[in-house]
């Protein structure tokens, strides 16, 4: 690498320090707002380079040239790359030409802020063009909005490399840059998208890795050094200790980035030994101004060429980049490809409409056409075992539980919750310390309102205690009446049966906990009394198995009979329909779950469909008692308070189901589980679910699914916010057996 010295940007610590201030302000800039316009207002162009080119396919002759600019606005630096209009190496009215036109739109880089850039890799081969790969960071926690990235397999829009499988036993690798990355930032609940793209690696024609980066930008007229030097004048740029050709941009301390770089995938194949090439560097300068003509003819040529070329450093660089991000994209690919196809099939979903404009429309047009041409590719790796190695790294890191001091900051001097939304958000991300769950649960469940003061809560407590005693008296009277004489007892058969069932069930509820263990445990009697009282309070619903599981943690937390009762009442306002005699509450949730899986993991959905598992009864226990039998007691309480915040969705529990199923999708499909086996497998997951990881996945899935996800869930699906009408519960037969 003889040019290395020329490109050397002094790694001067003082210089870097002097830039710290500037870079810090860049980190605070709001990338979302600027991402859609190609040139921010009041901007100053600090660097401009023509004939910067990308190669959207593996064919070097297929290229899109454009103008690369660095734009300074305020203290922020943006990069844009706009392809030349009408510039056409191949853009004839051929199919291929049209495809390139589509790429041109897709690949346009519209004002990417350097705050979003993680690193720049340069490559300056002795022969051929210099190029850089700009790798984006994501999941920045620098602004108050949750910024992260989504990508999408433009499945229908790529042309899969046709690589013969014979003669390449070690696996064939090829890289194409025909996918699309969408940067998403959440702002005031709305989503913003940025269209760009990222390279993907195929191994044996299956999509295996994909990275979060722009495709290599080839500097046909040189200028990589100036580019980097200009960047360094405006943002903090440091050379990576591991690779002299990698320049890290900003934010070295971001824990998420550390997390990402530690996520190395085991190499699935011996990459270096494989004679394949992603991009034909230095290969086709003679073709620079030629038009490519016959697509199909190029396929065998391509294979011929790659043998001559042998080792290509470009590939290695890309792979290194890709590996770091593969975990992320793997998940994203699975998820968003489903979403994208979903919205595509509906015409156009709201997510795409915002910023994609022309490119999205082009895509939409093309994809249907290409679907017919390229039916073989599945965006989901058909090797299910692959998935088990992966974890999803998307939801925000979980926070420690809300502590007492922090809790105090959410309250005003009289005890009102000042900002309910902020509180719900905080609890969503970390839960609550057990010590004062009592206070918080009563508010989360709606027993006390957020606006209530300490005094009001105390007052309500005493009022409600009296009210509770009144209802409790009703069944106590029944107990006495039914015991007076056999004649009376006959008139109370139903009551006695119900009471008998409750008595049987409370002694079978959480008896392994010290709170409920032992003979004549008073807490077990409280469970019984509260459930019986509830069956009088809500006579139509009565008592149903599973309720004791829901009540148990509440009594454990509230430590007071009346308070527990009223919190349980609030919970049953949400979950009551789970226990309807006709099971309509459960059926509607299981139905919504099947729609969500269809949206978020279509291959898994298809698998369930083929195996007659679409009733999702294997998730019955999860939903009925909100994962209580699947998690440790403490974890159950944590999950419940998170669910009760209704922060992202009031149906987060359904996304939790999807997240767990996705974790085990490889095993489920790989072992070809039928309904019975699946049911058993799911049952046996009890105690093995890592709550924090699953919550992060669920959060990510929920955000990914967005409005499409919400549309899967019919209105009124449990646990929606309580509906105030008497028809909510179907009439119970009062048959308690």
């Amino acid at each position, binding site marked *: 690498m003889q040019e290395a010295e020329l490109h050397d940007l002094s790694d001067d610590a003082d210089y870097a320090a002097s830039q710290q201030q500037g870079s810090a302000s860049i980190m605070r800039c709001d990338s979302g707002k600027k991402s859609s316009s190609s040139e921010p207002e009041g901007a100053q162009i600090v660097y401009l380079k023509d004939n910067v080119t990308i190669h959207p396919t593996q064919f070097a002759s297929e290229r899109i040239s454009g103008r690369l600019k660095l734009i300074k606005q305020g203290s922020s630096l943006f990069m844009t790359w706009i392809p030349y209009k009408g510039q056409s190496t191949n853009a004839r009215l051929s199919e291929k030409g049209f495809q390139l036109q589509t790429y041109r739109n897709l690949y346009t880089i519209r004002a990417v802020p350097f705050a979003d850039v993680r690193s720049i890799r340069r490559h300056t081969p002795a022969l051929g063009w210099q190029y850089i790969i700009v790798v984006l960071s994501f999941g920045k926690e620098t602004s108050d909005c949750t910024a992260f990235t989504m990508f999408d397999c433009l499945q229908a829009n790529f042309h899969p490399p046709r690589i013969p499988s014979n003669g390449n036993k070690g696996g064939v690798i090829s890289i194409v840059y025909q996918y699309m990355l969408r940067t998403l930032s959440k702002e005031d609940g709305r989503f913003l998208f940025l269209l760009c793209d990222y390279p993907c690696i195929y191994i044996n024609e299956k999509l295996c890795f994909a990275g979060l980066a722009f495709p290599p930008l080839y500097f046909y007229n040189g200028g990589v050094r100036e580019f980097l030097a200009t960047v360094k004048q405006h943002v903090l740029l440091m050379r990576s200790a591991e690779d002299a050709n990698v320049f890290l941009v900003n934010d070295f301390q971001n824990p998420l980035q550390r997390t990402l770089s530690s996520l190395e995938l085991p190499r699935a194949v011996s990459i270096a030994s494989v004679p394949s090439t992603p991009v034909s560097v230095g290969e086709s300068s003679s073709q620079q101004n030629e038009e490519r003509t016959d697509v199909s003819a190029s396929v065998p040529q391509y294979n011929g060429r790659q043998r001559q070329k042998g080792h290509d450093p470009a590939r290695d660089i890309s792979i290194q980049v890709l590996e770091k991000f593969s975990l992320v994209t793997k998940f994203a690919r699975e998820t968003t490809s489903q979403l994208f196809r979903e919205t595509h099939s509906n015409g156009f979903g709201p997510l795409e409409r915002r910023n994609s404009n022309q490119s999205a429309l082009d895509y939409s047009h093309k994809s249907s056409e290409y679907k017919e041409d390229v039916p073989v590719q599945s965006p989901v790796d058909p090797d299910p075992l692959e998935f088990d190695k992966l974890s999803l790294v998307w939801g925000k890191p979980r926070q420690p539980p809300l502590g007492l001091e922090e809790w105090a900051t959410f309250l005003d001097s009289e005890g009102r919750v000042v900002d309910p939304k902020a509180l719900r958000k905080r609890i969503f991300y970390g839960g609550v310390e057990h010590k004062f769950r009592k206070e918080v649960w009563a508010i989360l469940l709606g027993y006390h309102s957020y606006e209530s003061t300490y005094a009001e809560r105390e007052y309500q407590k005493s009022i409600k205690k009296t009210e509770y005693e009144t209802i409790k008296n009703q069944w106590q009277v029944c107990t006495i009446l039914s015991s007076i004489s056999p004649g009376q007892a006959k008139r109370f058969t139903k009551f006695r*049966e119900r009471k*008998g*069932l409750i008595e*049987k*069930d409370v*002694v*079978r*509820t*959480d*008896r*392994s906990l010290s709170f409920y263990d032992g003979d004549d445990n008073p807490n077990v009697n409280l469970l019984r009394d509260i459930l019986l009282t509830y069956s009088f309070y809500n006579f139509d619903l009565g008592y*149903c*198995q*599973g309720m*004791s*599981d829901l009540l148990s943690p509440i009594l454990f937390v509230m430590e007071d009979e009346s308070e527990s009762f009223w919190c349980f009442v609030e919970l049953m306002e949400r979950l009551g329909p789970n*226990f*309807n*005699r*006709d*099971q309509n509450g*459960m*059926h509607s949730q299981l139905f919504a779950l099947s729609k969500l899986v269809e949206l978020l993991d279509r291959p898994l959905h298809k698998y369930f469909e083929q195996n007659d598992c679409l*009733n999702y*009864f294997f998730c*019955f*226990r999860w939903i*009925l*008692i909100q994962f209580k*039998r699947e998690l440790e007691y403490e974890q159950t309480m944590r999950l419940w308070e998170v669910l009760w915040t209704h922060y992202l969705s009031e149906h987060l529990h359904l996304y939790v189901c999807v997240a767990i199923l996705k974790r085990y999708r490889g095993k489920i499909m790989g*072992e*070809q*589980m*039928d*309904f*019975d*086996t699946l*049911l*058993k497998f799911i*049952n*046996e997951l009890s105690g093995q679910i890592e709550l924090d990881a699953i919550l992060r996945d669920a959060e990510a899935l929920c955000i990914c699914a967005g409005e499409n996800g919400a549309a899967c869930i019919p209105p009124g699906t449990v646990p929606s916010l309580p509906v105030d009408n008497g028809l909510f519960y179907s009439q119970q*037969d009062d*048959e*308690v*057996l």
Partner: protein
Amino acid sequence: MFAILCVTTCYFSTSMFIFVCAGVGKSCLLLQFTDKRFQPVHDLTIGVEFGARLIGIDNNPIKLQIWDTAGQESFRSITRSYYRGAAGALLVYDITRRETFNHLTSWLEDARQHANANMTVMLIGNKCDLAYRRAVSTEEGEQFAKEHGLVFMEASAKTAQNVEEAFISTAAKIYKKIQDGVIDISNESYGIKLGHQTGAGLSGGRDGSASQAGSCCG
């Protein structure tokens, strides 16, 4: 009601169920059979739970996979779906509680309607150790079984009396149906699944489902 999935280790597997009313001791029966222990404190069953044990009939190893379903009436629309693949069922009532006996008819109708026609059903009167609190006589149980063509036995999950016999005789009946050709073991809707072809096979290797192999011979 229990559903029993009988799984033969070497060539076939069958399924069995346990049904019945809430709180008659299904889970205790199952635990006694699979683990040979009595655990009076057992979390109530939500949805469906499983037990499995390897037994031998005519020197053929058979893995019984038993589904223990929730008892309460409200869950019937869900539990129904579980017994479609069962080869046998144990219908259990509590001899100390007449109401559990009274509900047998509706459970049986339900099972007949939603399970396959050749399902072997055994009636169990549980808690026979509590004879002093008996509310249903042995004769009544026998009579009911006779009327509905069921095999009948009284058992106690607590003392283990007849527990082994109940499960094994049900499995033996299923086994006999297979040998008599009443049940086509290549049709999984009868609740029979083939395992590994390690021994002299009944069926000559039809439909040796690989997916089942792990759980059969494990």
